[in-house]
């Protein structure tokens, strides 16, 4: 079933490469422009559940990599659609129209990586409390330096009155 799916995708979308890194896993590398159409196509092919959206920060190549995990209901095949975005002002189209439950994943990635999802109505902060620093999951944010700067500066409360 996977081979004829691979031929079908490569016939329709020219700029994608499809590989099978391991049993039951299919990777579709594609450009940012054709993500919506590929996801639409895969959804019709039976991959009806968007399991998750992961994001990897390749700081050396200066790119973010977004991975859309799709899975059907009754077959072990698991599809990972990968796109690359450059790191500077990273932004991409939202996929709310195809998978409504992407709203929550996009909100998390916006907060932790700083990728702007155009079209997502609700990108308000999710986990962090009035955060003014770099998005924390980026490779160039050093959490140990941040800890020294914020938490270790606060002096402990010496009990000046009675030295017990």
């Amino acid at each position, binding site marked *: 079933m996977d081979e004829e799916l691979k031929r079908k995708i490569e016939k329709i979308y020219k700029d994608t490469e499809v590989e099978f890194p391991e049993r039951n896993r299919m990777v579709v590398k594609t450009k940012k422009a054709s993500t919506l159409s590929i996801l639409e196509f895969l959804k019709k092919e039976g991959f009806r559940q968007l399991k998750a959206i992961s994001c990897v920060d390749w700081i050396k190549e200066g790119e973010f990599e977004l991975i859309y995990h799709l899975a059907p209901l009754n077959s072990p095949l698991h599809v990972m659609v990968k796109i690359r975005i450059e790191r500077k002002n990273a932004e991409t189209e939202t996929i709310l129209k195809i998978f409504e439950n992407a709203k929550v994943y996009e909100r998390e990635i916006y907060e932790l990586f700083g990728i702007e999802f155009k079209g997502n109505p609700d990108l308000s902060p999710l*986990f*962090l*409390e*009035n955060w003014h*620093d770099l998005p*924390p999951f980026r490779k160039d944010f050093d*959490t*140990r330096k*941040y*800890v020294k700067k*914020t*938490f*270790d*500066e*606060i*002096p*402990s*409360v*010496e*009990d*000046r*009155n009675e030295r*017990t």
Partner: protein
Amino acid sequence: MDRKNILKWLKEPGKMGHKYSLWAVYFCTGCGIIEIPPTITSQWDAERFGVIPVATPRQANLFMITGYVSVKTLKAIIRTYEQMPEPKYTVAFGSCPINGGMYWDSYNTIKHIDKYIPIDGWIAGCMPRPEAIFIGVTKLWMMIDKGAATGYIRYRKNYKFYRRNQEKLFGKLPWPPLYPVDEKENKNG
């Protein structure tokens, strides 16, 4: 366990009352909460020592900080602590409230909880077992007896420093200070 010692009840009913009816706020602040249900249910049963979870901070006099504290939870902890009526005791579970524990390099967890609110008792263990919780409760009894469980008095005396630490972390706090803080001394404090 001098619960049946009538003489002590007549001499100092307040102290004995607080010892044998510790009502804990039902607030799971961290991962230690997984050991609270077994402690309050039939296998370990904390109710025979008079420790029951109550719904609101107003009714409670024991505050158990179970496990690590994240920045957002600290705001809720400070509000809950300040709403509790006066003789109140706090017990911190595990190594994370002491010095950040396993999450020492995490950007979102508090490293030393006693910089922000006073803590009376510490229970060691990366999630203390129910027996350790009972030992912590009995140690708290002894401290109440000796009058050493004075976290709330320290909070009232050094409120200026606690409030300054809290504001250093959160910036302007939305709720008014619990005790009057004279602004001028706070400037150069």
